[in-house]
């Protein structure tokens, strides 16, 4: 490797010139903080690939911002940047037709969304929870709620239990776990939304509490299946347009949630035939903030669905929402139903275009 050597740093103790990656001064032996990562032990072939692997193999956690070393306290020793946490961005791909991505977004300090997926060859469970950011420990609440609800729903779908009841049971079990994360005397109880879909036997079974959503998106049209428990939804029901209601300052205030201070934890449930080709989408408001109507979401999905890999498609939707500002945590869980490519033009199976159709109540 060639050494730039233009401005060699100096030891703060003795003033001797030192290498930028040195941990100790060779002149006086005093410790130094390296300002660049150490060169790799790969002098002959300096290609990007070998160098990158060399750093990885050294098992040093390297700061993605400046290349410094991540300290045991989770922050870079040189620039102080926070090491990315595993919870900030993760994907699940339980099957070739089911996948999802959960992301911190751009503007929130931590990821309080959570996602839990399950699938076999013909059946899938998609659960998304959005921790309410004004409450304490809502990231933990969302995580336990999502995994608990998934367990109950997987047991139901594999055991043949009626799903409408399973959703109610899943919400109750998730709520119990959320309550357990909060101290009884907390004035700011942890809370989270819940949106879940079970795809099986040509039908989509769904449920929600709060404003995380379930959509089905066909070839050219889509439908919002869930109904938000939010102030915006209340205004829509009074006759306001969706665009107008969702732009109100308190539009995102939710009226139902899981948590110790919740009074209503029975989700709204429903089911609908859906054989595709198309997508079942379960998402948090971090996505639908930028594409609320089924038409807008369908348009984004068409752009993102360059291939059939649901996790890759979810990654593109998350990237798109981040590019639009990433104001909130973003979760996108997808199940590909039927075949989407090559795209047939038969519209026989597509769902009605209306997003306002009242869902079935269970």
């Amino acid at each position: 490797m060639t050494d730039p050597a233009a401005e060699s740093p100096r030891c703060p103790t003795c003033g001797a010139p030192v290498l930028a990656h040195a941990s100790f001064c060779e002149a006086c032996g005093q410790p130094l903080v390296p300002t660049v990562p150490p060169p790799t032990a790969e002098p002959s072939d300096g290609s990007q690939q070998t160098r990158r692997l060399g750093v990885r193999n050294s098992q040093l956690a390297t700061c993605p911002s400046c290349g410094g070393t991540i300290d045991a306290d989770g922050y870079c020793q040189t620039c102080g940047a926070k090491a990315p946490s595993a919870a900030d961005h993760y994907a699940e791909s339980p099957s070739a037709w089911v996948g999802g991505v959960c992301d911190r977004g751009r503007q929130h300090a931590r990821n309080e969304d959570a996602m839990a997926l399950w699938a076999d060859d013909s059946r899938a469970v998609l659960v998304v929870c959005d921790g309410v950011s004004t409450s304490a420990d809502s990231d933990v609440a969302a995580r336990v709620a999502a995994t608990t609800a998934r367990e109950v729903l997987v047991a139901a779908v594999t055991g043949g239990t009626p799903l409408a009841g399973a959703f109610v049971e899943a919400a109750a079990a998730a709520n119990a776990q959320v309550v357990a994360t909060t101290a009884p005397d907390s004035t700011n109880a942890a809370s989270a939304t819940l949106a879940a879909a079970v795809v099986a036997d040509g039908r989509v079974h769904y449920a929600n509490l709060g404003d995380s959503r379930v959509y089905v998106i066909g070839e050219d049209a889509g439908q919002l299946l869930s109904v938000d428990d939010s102030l915006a939804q209340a205004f829509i029901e009074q006759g306001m347009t969706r665009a107008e209601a969702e732009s109100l300052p308190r539009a995102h205030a939710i009226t139902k949630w899981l948590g110790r201070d919740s009074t209503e934890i029975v989700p709204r449930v429903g089911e609908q035939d859906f054989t595709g080709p198309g997508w079942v989408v379960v998402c948090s408001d971090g996505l639908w903030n930028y594409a609320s109507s089924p038409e807008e979401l369908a348009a984004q999905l068409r752009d993102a669905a360059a291939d059939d890999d649901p996790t890759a498609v979810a990654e593109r939707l998350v990237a798109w929402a981040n590019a639009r500002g990433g104001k909130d945590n973003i979760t996108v869980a997808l199940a590909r139903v039927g075949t989407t490519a090559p795209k047939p033009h038969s519209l026989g199976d597509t769902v009605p275009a209306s997003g306002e159709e009242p869902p079935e109540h269970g």
Partner: protein
Amino acid sequence: MAEFVASVYQNEFLPEGGTDVNAIVTIRCSGAGAAGRTGSGNAGEIIAVDTSGSMGLANMEAAKQAAMIALDNILDGTYFAVVAGNHKAYLAYPMVQTGAGMVPMDARTRAEAKRAISFFRAEGGTAMGTWLNLCKALFDSIGNLANKHVILLTDGENHNETIEQLDQALANCAGHFQVDARGVGVDWKVAEIRKIAQTMLGTVDIIGNPAQLGAVFAELMRNSMARGVANAELRVWIPQGAQVLFIRQVSPTVEDLTHRGSPVNQLTMSYPTGSWADEERDYHVSIRLPAKTVGQEQLAARVQLAVGTDLLTQGLVKAKWSADTNLTAQINPEVAHYTGQAELAQMIQEGLAAKEAGDLDAATSKLGRAVQLATDTGNTEATAKLRKVVDIADARTGTVRLRQAVDKADVMALDTASTKTTRIRG
């Protein structure tokens, strides 16, 4: 082994474009043990008594009694010496010309030292720099002492030395031992003695009545003997490209440390904190960072306590940029409290200096602000001491009038206590 625990109090949220991070870092020490008994090295104590002519018969007798009481409170086995100071410094005990200038305390050496003290006579001038230099030479003659502590008593101004000579002595001694300085009577200069105490990481106070000398010396010595942790350093790491605005001890007293640091490496400075007993100290750390975009989080400082090469505790000061003004607009109560307390110390010192210089308008306004700050921050001791110097018309607006007849001891007591702070927990 002593245990240290750091706690951080701050509002880590910064608005878009925000750069300045303020935090109070509390460091608590427990299990400190006794000085010289923790295996890290022996303790050394020197009692330095002013024997200048101005001490007179009464103060000299009280000082002798107090020095003897201090000897009674030095644990056996501790190295010690007694220095008599006027315009020169004399080693009163042990009576040696060369070699080790301190001896271990036992029944015999204690009795011999008391006998040496009994011969003190008040005569000559005052040159405290020479006293300090002798103390350093005595500590150096033993070599491997861990805790090194001096009780210094004076009654007058440093007439027989220039300011430069004293500063030179302080530069020679700083970092080598600690000095608790006490002034008896009202003929000494608070600013002069405070400079010695602050540079030497000790305390300053006035002893208005010579009869209190014995009790004060006993307490100072007991406190020193309880400091089982020697030479602890506060280390502050900041990220590359950041800047320290200030580092300040804010409890139990306000001490600006900003310019007392020495570099450990390119990003870390070390600030001496002297020795520790079982106690808590609070530090106000103020750091300026390049602003990052909303949603980003980074470390603004690692605040560590180190003894030798051992890092014993670490507090993390963070910065999170947020668009939520509910989060970014809050001022942390601890930061607000200690910002007020630091301004209180400054207002008292500047107000008294203005009063002495005859600038009564400035004195009235600064002492008025001090009354207001003392009231706001619940510092009742400062309010009580201010009350002896000003008549308070309205404490909340800081409306005061300078009192006509003021006891000089009350002014000095207000001045020496100006840096003492009260604590809060929000």
